[in-house]
């Protein structure tokens, strides 16, 4: 089956109030071309579930986020995401902050179609008080231990970005870490994968071992070829993080004029124009 589609078609499917999971980790292999398309849309009141990076900063800046469920938000080389920081300090959205490991467990529960998974991480910390709807379960065995019943993080849609994919929805990571992209797909009703390059299925192993084809076509509903689609986050070995661009992005948080100029140049344009503007710097 040929599952090729475009950012525009994917975002046209999304609705206000949906729960959207975004793969990658921090400022690494984020489906940024899909995020940029959401910024161009009228979508609002989204619940975003992610190990956050600039995807979160941008969606917050645009006021798209009603609730954020997250393990952290960081630009890696810039530890604090300044736009996220600003939005948090303005109290602009509901912050469902989790321990990093709890987020994995919530996705895993959804992936395995379980209502919850027991988890010890979070107990005793204020993760419990900032998520007052979380309940605990007691072990039915002799230990009797009381654990958090981490609720399944069921997603309406998952968005991920891979190095390579074929048209049927198999996906390959060529960098060092698969992150949790597979769990985001398993946890979602509709799954969209952008990639640097679409290849023939028989060509996957020219660039990486069989172990790097971590996404299979049962996990994906649509494939988008998006060269530079993770920019400015890293997408090794295709490209590293664009640190200069990231610095420029970060510096606009404190300067409304700089933000307006950044937005006009890079975000109020098509994806092709974005990529052109990045190259012509």
């Amino acid at each position, binding site marked *: 089956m040929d599952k090729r589609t475009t950012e525009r078609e994917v975002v046209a499917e999304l609705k206000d109030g949906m729960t959207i999971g975004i793969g990658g980790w921090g400022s690494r292999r984020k489906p940024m071309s899909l995020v940029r398309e959401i910024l161009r849309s009228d979508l609002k009141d989204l619940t975003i579930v992610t190990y956050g990076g600039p995807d979160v900063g941008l969606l917050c800046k645009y006021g798209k986020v009603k609730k954020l469920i997250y393990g952290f938000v960081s630009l890696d080389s810039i530890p604090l995401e300044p736009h996220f920081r600003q939005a948090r300090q303005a109290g602009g959205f509901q912050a469902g*902050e989790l321990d990093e490991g709890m987020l994995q467990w919530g996705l895993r529960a959804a992936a395995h179609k379980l209502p919850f998974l027991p988890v010890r991480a979070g107990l005793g*910390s204020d993760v419990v008080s900032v998520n007052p709807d979380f309940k605990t379960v007691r072990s039915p065995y002799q230990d009797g*231990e009381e654990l958090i019943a981490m609720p399944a993080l069921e997603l309406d849609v998952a968005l991920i970005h891979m190095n390579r994919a074929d048209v049927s929805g198999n996906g390959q990571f060529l960098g060092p870490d698969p992150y949790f992209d597979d769990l985001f797909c398993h946890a979602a009703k509709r799954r969209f994968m952008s990639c640097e390059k679409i290849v023939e299925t028989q060509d996957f192993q020219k660039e990486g071992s069989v172990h790097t084809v971590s996404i299979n076509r049962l996990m994906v509903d649509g494939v988008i070829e998006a060269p530079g689609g993770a920019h400015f986050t890293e997408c090794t070995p295709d490209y590293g993080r664009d640190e200069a661009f990231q610095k420029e992005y970060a510096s606009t948080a404190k300067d409304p004029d700089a933000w307006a100029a950044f937005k006009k140049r890079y975000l109020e344009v098509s994806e092709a124009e974005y990529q052109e503007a990045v190259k012509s710097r």
Partner: protein
Amino acid sequence: MSDATRAEICAVAIAECFRDDGETLMSAFGTTPTVGGRLAKLTFSPDLFMTDGTATAAETVPPLGGEHGPDVVKGAWMPFRLFFDNVVWTTRRHAMMMASQIDRFGNQNFACIGPHEKPKAQLLGMRGAPGNTIYHRTSYFVPNHTAKVFVEKVDVVSGVGYDRAAELGEATSRYHDIHRVVSNLGVFDFETPDHSMRLVSVHPDVSVDQVLENTGFELAHDQVVPETRLPSDEESHLIRDFLDPKGLINKEIPV
């Protein structure tokens, strides 16, 4: 006479935190903790396990910034999910994290200042601190010891302290182990009857009163508090000539 800087003394005190860990993953965040942790592995704790900071174990010790250098022998694959599955949740790790606030019982905050729903200052967030502290040994590093950091009550609990762990009961808190705190003024542990913080040693040229004045809670201490030990010649050599030739730790702790 030693010409050791305060930062070098802190690095050695940090190395000492990892002395008896054996075959454990040493995770140290911050410049001085990175140097201190690696110093332990190069000297008295050779079995410590570490990563290159990305997704692979480093089986030889790199200098600061040299994690991906050609001389670093890479071992096992260690992407984030295996980090949770194989290390954190199997308890085989000792993490040294920073603390923006820490209280008497070792509750730590680097999440935010002010109320969580609308913080005055968003900091790092909870990150892995809740899971780390409930699953494995944890120590803390504070480069700027003041009463604003060593506080009576932290604004938000990211890392779990002894009082909160005790409330969870024995089964849940059985891996909880806040080992030590190293600051620019001294070394601290929680080896008191109620697990409240205790001053273990003051760094050379620091007085006990200076530590007490800069601590926002009642700090336990013995009548006579020893001085933190100085680096040996070998340790000085390893810090200055190999781990940190640019002296970056002296920027983190400028005394």
